[in-house]
């Protein structure tokens, strides 16, 4: 499998606080990676560095051969089109209805024809099970529904990789399942995914690799069966003993 994202010596500090300390990893095409670890370990910052929502302090992010840390704003916008992102707090645009949320970027960035954009948005809403909510405004939907719209919105740009930043952490428990189901379908369709999550069940079932982060490092990685059955580092053992 070819490399999708190469992370080389990535570091990130906020003032004196070094959050990420020298991370070097590779994500291959079609892989589903779940990033787990205790709060404050740097998981979200790591994910946000991948599409340069946070500018890394040092190191490189190489996405399909191009270094994202050292390109113009215009080129960066181009590359972001190919990396979808889903946020913990959905971040739907409350001033537009559901279908306008989904078709905004294809219309304004890709200059897709209106008709084509509507058709594609309709398909995606169908795929996440919300075809009947197209005309509603985001704030009238439940959290789970909003997050599924956010996934459809990200998919509307036909991304090559999807980044999920704790997509179910802000949801009521009974809504977690519907979102994870959509994500599992997506993984099975072959999408490359990097998921920061606390849903261990999902990680076990769907991930190709688990990356365990603590104190700004990726301390340990492996397949779910290896990692959950037999963690190597004491930190991973301690973490798993707390949550399982």
């Amino acid at each position, binding site marked *: 499998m070819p490399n999708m994202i190469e992370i080389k010596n990535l570091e990130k500090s906020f003032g004196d606080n070094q959050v990420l300390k020298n991370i070097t990893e590779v994500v291959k095409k079609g892989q589903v990676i779940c990033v787990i670890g205790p709060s404050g370990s740097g998981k979200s910052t790591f994910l946000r560095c991948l*599409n340069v*929502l946070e500018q890394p302090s040092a190191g490189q992010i190489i996405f399909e051969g191009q270094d994202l840390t050292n390109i113009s*704003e*215009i080129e960066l*916008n*181009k590359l*972001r*089109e190919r*990396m*979808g*992102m889903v*946020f913990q*707090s959905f*971040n*739907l*645009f*409350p*001033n537009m209805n559901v279908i306008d949320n989904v078709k*905004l*970027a294809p219309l*304004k*960035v890709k200059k897709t024809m209106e008709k084509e954009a509507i058709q594609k948005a309709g398909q995606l809403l169908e795929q996440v099970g919300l075809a009947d909510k197209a005309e509603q405004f985001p704030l009238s939907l439940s959290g789970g529904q909003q997050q599924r719209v*956010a996934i459809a*919105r*990200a998919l509307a*740009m036909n991304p090559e990789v999807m980044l999920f930043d704790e997509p179910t952490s802000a949801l009521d428990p009974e809504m977690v399942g519907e979102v994870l189901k959509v994500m599992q379908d997506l993984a099975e369709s072959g999408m490359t995914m990097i998921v920061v999550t606390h849903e261990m069940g999902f990680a076990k079932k769907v991930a190709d690799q688990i990356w365990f982060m603590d104190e700004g490092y990726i301390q340990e990685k492996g397949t779910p069966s290896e990692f959950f059955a037999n963690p190597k580092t004491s930190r991973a053992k301690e973490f798993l003993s707390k949550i399982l």
Partner: protein
Amino acid sequence: MKSKKIWIALVILIMMLLVPLGKVSASNDGYLQKVKDKGTLVVGTSADYPPYEFTVKQSGKTSYVGLDIEIAKKFAKDLGVKLEIKNMNFDSLLVALETHKVDAVISGMNPTPERQKSVDFSNVYYRGQQYMLINKKDAALYKNIHSFKNKTIGAQTGSLQYDLVKKQMKNNQVKGLAKLNDLVIALESGKVNAVAMEEATAKAFAQNNSSLKVINPEFNVNSSQTGSAMAFPKGATSLVKAADKTIAEIQKKNLINKQYIPLAGKYMTNNSKKNSMWNYWTYFAKGIEYTLIITVVSVFFGFILGVILALLRLSKNKLGKAVAVAYIEFVRGTPLMVQVMFVYFGVGAVIQSLPALLAGIIAVSLNSAAYVAEVIRSGIESIPTGQTEAARSLGLSQSLTYRYVVIPQALKNIWPALGNEFITLIKESSIVSIIGVGDLMYQMQLVQSATYKGVIPIFITMVIYFVMTFGLSKVLGYFEGRMKHA
């Protein structure tokens, strides 16, 4: 570092504003020729001083009348040019002369030594005594300046009478107001015990108001300080000579006493006969029209400039940011009244043809922009960063993000604050009346001088302002409600 940049930008801004001042008086004497070339003599006056100058309504139009106006007419005729009267506050007259807004000033003005330092005067054309107006019921109490102790005496700001009261009635307080009408209201309502004014004027007021009485308080006046003369820019000798010629002729024929004063008296009696407010509705209508024009145009340009300033302030460009911050702080830190006067007299000194209305609109727009910019900035900053991040993660550029995501949401949030600014402007625009723009406030003063009624025009004006602002707030509320549905 940051605050240093702001200071530098502020200093540059101030210097830019001051540059025009350097050019104010750049002329040797081509004054007379200039007036003849343009074919119009522009004369400044403060038309609230009957019988010298005041307004009457003739077939629906406001015209300026009085003995000074007759002299100005004669002067213009002798020069073979048309006469244009500019009405403004007495305080502003000399500034208008110095900044060449007007060619001459005729406003019952005494040629005092202080004034002679900044302008040149013609010969005195009329000499009246310095009188006082008191309430009739106090007639037994006040005979002359020595009967006043610990009283409050009113006088027009910047006038000879003001100085006289200040210097010769030291045991009393002076209350200075810009308009004689306001002083007379103050007298009637007991805010002041007497108003010092020129003989002819005092007599005119007493004639039209039976509760007032005239006394001669016997001020110690030397003759150079009494009479009235025309004022011209310093060094305009050609105009002064021409004026002296006209004045000599007027005095030879005794035109002032034979023609001008009787004519003024006729106008005054006419005025007081038909001083019901209904006769003056066109004044108020005109005032509403001007106030709305000023407000709407200023809101429009203030908003556009405000958006630009807000975006500059939020931008990463450090110079742009510093300029925006300096502008906003400077404009918010100075009174609108000063800004209006600065634009009219300061900037107007360079662009001489700058009309008062335009100057007013410019000043109000520039002022409003600073406030609008802050409202817009707060609106943009109220949008959660998650919205921007979501848009950027989809590949939207910064400008697309602003256009489709941030601005629409921000506008909805700041709509009430913007509406508030609009309503404030309707009221604040009343300040442009000081440079003689015919807005509602200014028309109110005209009606006051024309009718000798002080309080009723104020009340009517107040009601009109309220109807305008209340109506507007209802309209804005309707749109706010509609935006909520979206």
